């Protein structure tokens, strides 16, 4: 498709500051007038910031990378769809808060650094404040679905200076039209608009001749509007400086499925960045508790229902859930592919962008707030050193990542959300890497009871996705097959990947030890009881 982009374009365009207002045509003019020469940056492509939000957390065994090192790692099954972009990725692990997440505050954790950070701008808006002044649109806030009003936080990731949610737009054609099908941007359209005004005025004059005095007020009002519009058009012709012929851009078709809608929006996002109409975009693939039905994937159960894969377990449910998650991953791939396709300065658009992809929640049934899926993509013009996997030694609050990104965008910010030290390692600087600590593993049997110490893991076998295991060195793993009550009250999902001591009522199944009722859980190195509070 890039062959259709026969546009002569300066390295970057000069626009001016202006908010995205719901008026598609001339009103953009109102925002013009502000000066907009990027003097000091001459010759360098501007850096863009894009956020892509994934709803409803993940199925951790399918997402997490277990083992591997910073420069030598294998991507997980869920990462397959975008593994071809490995060289452009910086995969972060052990990001999150202590405890658990609600759907509605997971959006603040994701882009405002902490679930409790409700009074400041989200990361994208802080960055937009810095880099959005030179473009026609300061930033775009985009989404796919409607508002979940019962828990309104589910529907927004972008928040203004006061921490109030910013309205989002879901229609790719409408966004395209605001950006490009606009007489203020397009001399041809301006010309046509002017002749249209003349024609309509003729029509109105003809009507005035045949109508009585009493209607002249109505028509006078109409003439006034035409004159004002004409004046603004003239004014526009003298101030407009855009050199891009937007009429060569392809307006997306009217979408039929959710997939069409998202693909079209990703197209518009790439065009918006490439034409330098804006440098900052946030896009939600769904509300954080999305109830969307992916019928075009042959799935007729709601995403949120399926995401609670323990309590609603069946093989077909977990298959459906993973199918949906893979679709999200494909959209991330789609975005990166598009950004690579566009030349920008000496590299691709992706080379001059920072893309933040992920979710504000880890385990989608238990709602754990750690090991969040978070990936950065693009070099950001040298800000980030990609093709790496950073697994931090301890849980890192997302606010540290945000603080670090803000500073890299040249923002003078000393602290953000709960964090006052930036996250190290993004640009290749040293960071404390996750290290295994040694511990003993064993299993003891009592009368009808078992106590086992070892690393807890979730089953990789999707036929038994609600089963956990404790690995014991030199012995068969102890199988943990419990009901939702135990899963929930002992927070098993929270301890996955870490060594624990677990006691319970025993049984045996095909020669394997099975715990089917938990009576006690102790974490060897962490908190045994993460608590029920929203983390």
């Amino acid at each position: 498709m890039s062959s259709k982009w026969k546009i002569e374009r300066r390295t970057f365009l000069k626009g001016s500051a202006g908010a995205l207002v719901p008026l598609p045509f001339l009103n953009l003019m109102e925002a013009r007038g502000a000066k907009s020469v990027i003097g000091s940056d001459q010759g360098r492509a501007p850096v863009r910031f894009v956020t892509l939000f994934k709803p409803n957390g993940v199925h951790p065994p399918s997402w997490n990378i277990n083992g591997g090192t910073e420069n030598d790692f294998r991507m997980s099954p869920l990462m397959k769809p975008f593994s071809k972009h490995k060289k452009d990725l910086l995969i972060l692990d052990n990001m999150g808060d202590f405890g658990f997440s609600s759907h509605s505050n997971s959006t603040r954790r994701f882009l405002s650094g902490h679930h409790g950070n409700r009074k400041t701008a989200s990361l994208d808006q802080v960055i937009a404040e810095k880099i959005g002044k030179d473009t026609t649109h300061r930033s775009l806030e985009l989404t796919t679905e409607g508002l979940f009003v019962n828990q309104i936080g589910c529907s927004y990731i972008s928040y203004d200076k006061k921490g109030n949610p910013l309205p989002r737009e879901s229609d790719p054609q409408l966004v395209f039209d605001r950006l490009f099908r606009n007489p203020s941007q397009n001399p041809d359209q301006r010309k046509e608009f002017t002749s249209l005004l003349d024609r309509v005025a003729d029509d109105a004059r003809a009507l005035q001749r045949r109508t009585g005095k009493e209607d002249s007020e109505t028509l006078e009002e109409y003439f006034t509007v035409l004159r004002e519009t004409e004046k603004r058009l003239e004014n526009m012709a003298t101030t407009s400086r855009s050199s891009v012929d937007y009429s060569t851009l392809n307006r997306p078709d009217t979408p039929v499925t959710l997939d069409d809608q998202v693909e079209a929006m990703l197209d518009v996002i790439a065009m918006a960045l490439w034409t330098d109409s804006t440098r900052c975009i946030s896009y939600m693939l769904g509300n954080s508790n999305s109830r969307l039905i992916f019928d075009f994937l042959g799935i007729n159960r709601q995403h949120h229902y399926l995401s609670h894969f323990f309590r609603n377990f069946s093989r077909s449910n977990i298959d459906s859930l993973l199918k949906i998650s893979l679709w999200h991953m494909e959209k991330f791939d789609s975005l990166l592919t598009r950004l690579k396709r566009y030349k920008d300065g000496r590299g691709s658009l992706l080379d001059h962008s920072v893309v933040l992809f992920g979710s504000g929640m880890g385990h989608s049934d238990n709602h754990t707030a750690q090991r969040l899926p978070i990936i950065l993509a693009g070099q950001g013009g040298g800000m980030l050193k990609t093709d790496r996997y950073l697994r931090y030694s301890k849980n890192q609050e997302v606010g540290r990542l945000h603080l670090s990104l803000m500073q890299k965008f040249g923002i003078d910010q000393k602290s953000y959300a709960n964090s006052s030290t930036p996250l190290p390692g993004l640009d290749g600087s040293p960071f404390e890497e996750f290290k295994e600590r040694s511990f003993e593993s064993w299993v003891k049997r009592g009368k009808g009871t078992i106590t086992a110490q070892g690393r807890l893991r979730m089953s990789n076998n999707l036929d038994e996705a609600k089963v956990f295991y404790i690995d014991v060195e030199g012995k068969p793993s102890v199988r943990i097959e419990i009901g939702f009550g135990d899963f929930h009250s002992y927070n098993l999902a929270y301890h996955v990947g870490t060594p624990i001591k677990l006691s319970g009522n025993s049984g045996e199944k095909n020669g394997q030890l099975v715990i089917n009722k938990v009576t006690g859980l102790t974490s060897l190195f962490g908190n045994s009881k993460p608590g029920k509070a929203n983390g």
Partner: protein
Amino acid sequence: MKGEVDFSKIKTQADADSRFELWETVAEMIGAGEMPPEDNPQLNPKEKTMILDWHQERLEAPIEPRPGIFRPRRLSGPEYRNTLRSLFGFELKVAIAEAQQTVTGEQSLVLKLLPKDPPGASGFINDTHGATLSPVIWEQYAFLTDTAIERLFAPKQRPQLEEMIGEKLPANWEPSSLTLDQSRALIRRFVPRALRRHVSDDRLSTSLKPLKNKSGLELLKTLKFEMKAVLLSPAFLYRGLLVERFPGTQRQVDPFELAERLSYFLWEDRPDKELMTLAADGSLLKEEVITAQVKRMLKAPQARNLAQSFGVQWLGIANLDELIKNPISHHSLRTQPVLFLNHLFTEDRPVIELISSKTTFVNEGVSSFYGQDREKMKRHPKPKGIERQTTPFNKFTLEKATWRGGIITMPGILTMNRGPIQRGTWLLRRVLGVRLGEPPADVPPIKPAPRGQKLTFRERFERHRTDPSCARCHEEIDPLGFALDGYDTNGRFIDRNGKNANGPDTSGKLPTGEIFQDYTGLKEILLGSQREKIIRNSVERTLSYAMCRKLTRTDQPTIDRITKSIVKDNGTWENLFVEIVNSLPFRETIFEGETKK
């Protein structure tokens, strides 16, 4: 209006007559001593009496029925949306993924972009006389026009384009291969449809001439331009600019204007092909023809707009939008009264069934309000994997839930008006058509009960009402409102047989002296002594919506006549609509200006 009237412009008796409402206000202000203004010469008592007597005399004098003065008006937002949709054959929608429990917001691109119309003096948004056009609105029209025309030539819209050109297009057809004949055919169909009447050859040639000698993309561009010019012309955006005028006369409106009045009244949309044909040969002017059309139109799906627009605005049902945040309850509570009104309007039901009807529409969101009757409801089991969902409505006949039936006790209506005062005011204003003044500015708050006394809200309120300036309205409001105290805030019926035997006092006495024990008793009074009042208000509101204006004194005879006939024959809503479209204000108009010799 205060301070803005130039009385020197009123020269003739007819001028004076046409300003009935002005004299109402003048009399009121003189009576209250607010006119003339303080720093102007004052009237002596004799002059004052003279003016007030004159007014009183005229008030009591028999009124000649007269139609309204002809005024063009801009299409309201919903009218514009519907007109554009029926003109093009597709709707401009906002792309947004739909999911249960979410609010997708305005899904019509037209309504999303156009500023919301304020209600006019009539209280209805189709009364756009006071809504000025602004550059912002005009630009939105320009944008929407552009969007619709672009879309018409997209491959998905081929059937609509074929219909407009009047011929089948080959499968591999591209807009650039449009022929001159095709574009002419399109203009010939498009212009009269858009302007809602047959147009002169002169007007047609304005749009046809520029197409001459053009082909390919240039032709396409010119054609689109001509279509845009039509849709941005005031003749399209306003109603009535093309009417046949006869200045200085009162006469029947021309048949196309009549067709437009009819279709925007019943459908909120432009006249369809059949109406246009009947207008073209003038037969629509015949009483039996237009009556048959009303019957036909009420069966069409567009007639749902009567309930959706007229019904919702009349009864203030949109108040639920702000109040009920849960999308599923909102959908249930908001849809139920609309379906009920639609049933009354389109299925030939008596006007008075607004108050009392055995028919209702129930889905799972409201079924719990219907006691044992809910057992008759068709079940809609929730598919697996769906957490919550809206369910379809079923029409059913009330048997045991005698405390429901009619609009007043619908859960949505009761919950929309919380507490006895809101409920009483709503009933009085919206259903009985009583004009209540604004409450006085210095209303004291309702006092708490004195120490050691236990008083209900009602008892405390009754003490409050001893203030005569409050009592004037509250005498009327309160008995109605307290009767509805038999339903809780959420509209749930409080069953007195069980633990609620000592529930709130729902008895009352109307200013007429009639007494009742509870809402069932009040309902009998509403259906008895108040029946005519309710029917009169229904007639007034419908006529006002149909005329898109506030009614005046000269509409009184029409209202009286229709009310009488509906009261006498237990007339239906359909009868009412037929009466209205055959009435003088609907059929005739006064064109201002000098009579041309």
